[in-house]
């Protein structure tokens, strides 16, 4: 029951972050939204594991968290050195 409530809160947060990612306005806002989205996805995986009685989901959450951080740093590095289309305004 409480797991469902936490999962619902996380899903709503994900939706809010998606709205921010759509609105922008700068690329950094979108990246921040994606970062929040990643954290929410990670927590959601953990909660879903308990909700369904399958704690193996925690391994997925760990891997997802690692990829999230590495992906964020990689995108920013690429953005600084290679450019990512029309950035900013």
């Amino acid at each position, binding site marked *: 029951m*409480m797991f469902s409530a936490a999962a619902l809160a996380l899903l709503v947060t994900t939706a809010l972050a998606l709205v921010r990612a759509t609105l922008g306005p*700068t690329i950094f806002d979108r990246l921040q939204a994606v970062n929040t989205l990643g954290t929410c996805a990670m927590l959601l995986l953990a909660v879903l594991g308990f909700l369904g009685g399958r704690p193996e989901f925690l391994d997925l959450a760990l891997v997802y968290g690692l990829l999230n951080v590495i992906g964020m740093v990689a995108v920013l590095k690429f953005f600084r050195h290679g450019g990512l289309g029309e950035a900013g305004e």
Partner: protein
Amino acid sequence: MSLELLRDLASWACLLAGGGFCLVGGIGLLRMPDFYTRMHAASVTDTLGAGLILLGLLLQAGFTLIGAKLLMVGLLIFFASPTASHVLARAAMIHGLAPQLADSAEDASSKP
């Protein structure tokens, strides 16, 4: 029996509060006026929201392998999320995105 109940109650309170703080972060992400202030809102989700939800799950798991893995997820967030935030904020700063400040006098001196 009553100890079980107490533990369940604590864990539920943590889960609910954690979900609430996550929502606050999401709301702040929409309400705040500029990028840097949005970051502060998002860090509520990353720290208090994530921490309380993981604590709630940890109370359910107890001293098991699952609990150890939850701790690892927590430590990962604890160490990695400030690094990601800092990299993002620094990239925005280098790109020249100026923060909106309350005192505009300080704005001139703070440009990199």
